[in-house]
């Protein structure tokens, strides 16, 4: 019995350490995001014509769309947060391309951000395609842009255009292993 008690205590101690570490990590992420927003807002108010800060602040808002739901928030709260962050990200990327029309990165992130729109909500397909195409007109050799545009075409059942983009991605992809994976995706699409 003493051994069982000792083992239980050890397990409880390790579990509490794990919970504390997870809690610290959540606090770190929140503080990091808040601090970044604070400095980005300050930089923009000091120099409202700097596209870089809008772009970086947009990426910070966009990063929310790529994170898991906070377990302490309800679904409704999560969707509200998502909606807010998405709108803020889109506004920042739009401002960045208004100030610097050759910001391929901003077009790419704006297109991706719209694509990651809340699950179940309708997409503005043409707007997403326009952003990807604008980014591609500026960096025509970016394999990932071709691949993502191809995947988007596939999701909206525009198979012929999807195949063209997949083929371009395969030509430009960096390594053979990745090329083979894209090739397999293309074969699935062609079935």
């Amino acid at each position, binding site marked *: 019995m003493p051994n069982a008690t000792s083992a239980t205590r050890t397990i409880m101690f390790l579990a509490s350490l794990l919970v504390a570490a997870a809690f610290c990590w959540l606090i770190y992420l929140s503080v990091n995001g808040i601090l970044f927003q604070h400095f980005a807002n300050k930089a923009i108010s000091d120099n409202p014509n700097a*596209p*870089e800060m809008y*772009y*970086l602040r947009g*990426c910070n808002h966009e990063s929310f769309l790529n994170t898991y739901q906070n377990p302490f928030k309800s679904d409704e709260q999560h969707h509200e947060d998502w909606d807010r962050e998405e709108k803020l990200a889109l506004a920042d990327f739009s401002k960045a391309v208004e100030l*610097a029309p*050759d*910001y*391929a*990165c*901003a077009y*790419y992130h704006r297109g991706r951000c719209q694509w990651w729109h809340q699950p179940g909500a309708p997409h503005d397909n043409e707007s997403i395609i326009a952003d990807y195409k604008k*980014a591609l007109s*500026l*960096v025509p*050799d*970016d*394999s*990932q*842009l071709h*691949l993502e545009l191809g995947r988007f075409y596939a999701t909206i059942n525009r198979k012929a255009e999807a195949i063209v983009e997949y083929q371009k991605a395969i*030509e*430009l*992809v*960096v*390594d*053979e*292993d*990745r090329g083979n994976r894209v090739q397999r995706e293309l074969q699935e699409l062609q079935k």
Partner: protein
Amino acid sequence: MSPAQFAALYFETPVPLMRKLEGTAYLGVPSRPQFGYVGYIAFECDQEPVLRDAQQFKSGGHIIGLTDSFVTRFDAFAYSLLHARDTTCLRYIEPGNESSIRWFMHNKKTNKYFFRRGSNDMFPG
């Protein structure tokens, strides 16, 4: 490994010609030193630096992902890379070592240069 030593491994151009050289480099896989060093460097240079194996470099890959990674690491020093119209990006896959890719990027309107060697896991494409 210092950024200067790292630069000397991958550029023909003498390191003293590179100004404001900064970055980081370390042994990619400590248990496999033959994998070599991986890292990021950025510098200014009045003449275009010459890469070792320059003829092997070509365009492609996830250029936007690479741009973002340089902006994350070098902050304002790399902002000019965001202007895609003036930016060039080249990459070279070392033979027999697909996880070692050399990337070279610069903006034609500035004399700032960026180089990375490492695996392709950081970003897709």
